[in-house]
């Protein structure tokens, strides 16, 4: 189960990156990165998963005294939350860039953004 999730995550990263580095259209490229980001998040969550345990929320189901034996690792979950938000921010920024590039250059083809080189 964990392994499957992990593998899926890695696969998503590779898939997303493949899109991101082969597609010329900026929007598709951004979608590629989004997929890769998702894969990354999946990997992170999987790493924190302990088989047979429950979410790290205390209460009636998991009294604080037995928490150590019942819950999964809360840290990756916290990290993933942060990572998701950051990924969102970057995606928004890239989209804004894409829009602006389209507005000024009239193209969404990344290979036509080669004015700066060498």
């Amino acid at each position: 189960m964990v392994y499957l999730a992990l593998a899926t995550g890695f696969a998503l990263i590779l898939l997303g990156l493949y899109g991101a580095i082969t597609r010329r259209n900026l929007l598709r490229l951004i979608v590629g990165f989004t997929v890769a980001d998702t894969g990354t998040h999946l990997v992170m969550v999987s790493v924190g998963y302990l088989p047979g345990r429950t979410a790290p929320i205390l209460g009636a189901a998991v009294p604080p005294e037995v928490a150590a034996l019942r819950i999964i690792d809360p840290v990756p979950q916290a990290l993933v939350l942060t990572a998701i938000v950051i990924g969102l921010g970057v995606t928004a920024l890239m989209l804004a860039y894409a829009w602006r590039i389209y507005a000024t250059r009239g193209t969404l083809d990344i290979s036509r953004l080669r004015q700066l080189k060498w």
Partner: protein
Amino acid sequence: MIKRAIAFALLAGLGLVFLALWQGFEPDPSLNRSALYYAENTVTDTGAANIVAAVIVTYRGLDTLGEVTVLFLTAAIVAMVLRGGLADSGPRPGRWPTGELLHTGSRLLVPLIALFGAYVFLNGHLTPGGGFQGGAIIASAMLLMLLTDPARNFSHRLIATTESVSGLAYVAIGLAGMALAGGFLDNRILPMGEFGSILSAGAIPLIYALIGLKVGAEFSSILLSLSEREK
């Protein structure tokens, strides 16, 4: 073609790295020391029932502050980017008016959604959810309104003020932690309250509320900026 082949080769290489990671991975049999610490001490340290919330808001509060800042930053930059392009955007063709169903539905739903969002971030320290989730839900209300009436004018000022005031308050709470409790973003500046109740866990609900407002405002701001491009 060559390009694809190169991309393929590179990703295959990266895949090998991932394969090695995958093969070497073994789930922990028990909690590692950090997780163990959180499992055992969250309640006494912070009084929060949702350990993830405690980790996010308190233990890794600096991350979260940064995270909020990321959204703030993105909102600011997106506004900058899109505003900079005003001159280029010519008149756009008019739109079809939105349907009656959507109109009426949104009148009903928007307050509910907003209320739900507030619930989610106010209970973040007790149940799954929190400021980000709540904020996102609030922003979805915003989205709904935008869909209903793209031409509608929203008060940028209000959004910006909400965004900034909550951000400032967040920083102020962080500094208060230094002055009154154990360090920056220490939640124990407020009474711990009774475990499991809504007014517990020190400053966590307050911070989550601020985050919720801020995130909601920031998402709204981004959506607004994007949609105004469409006008």
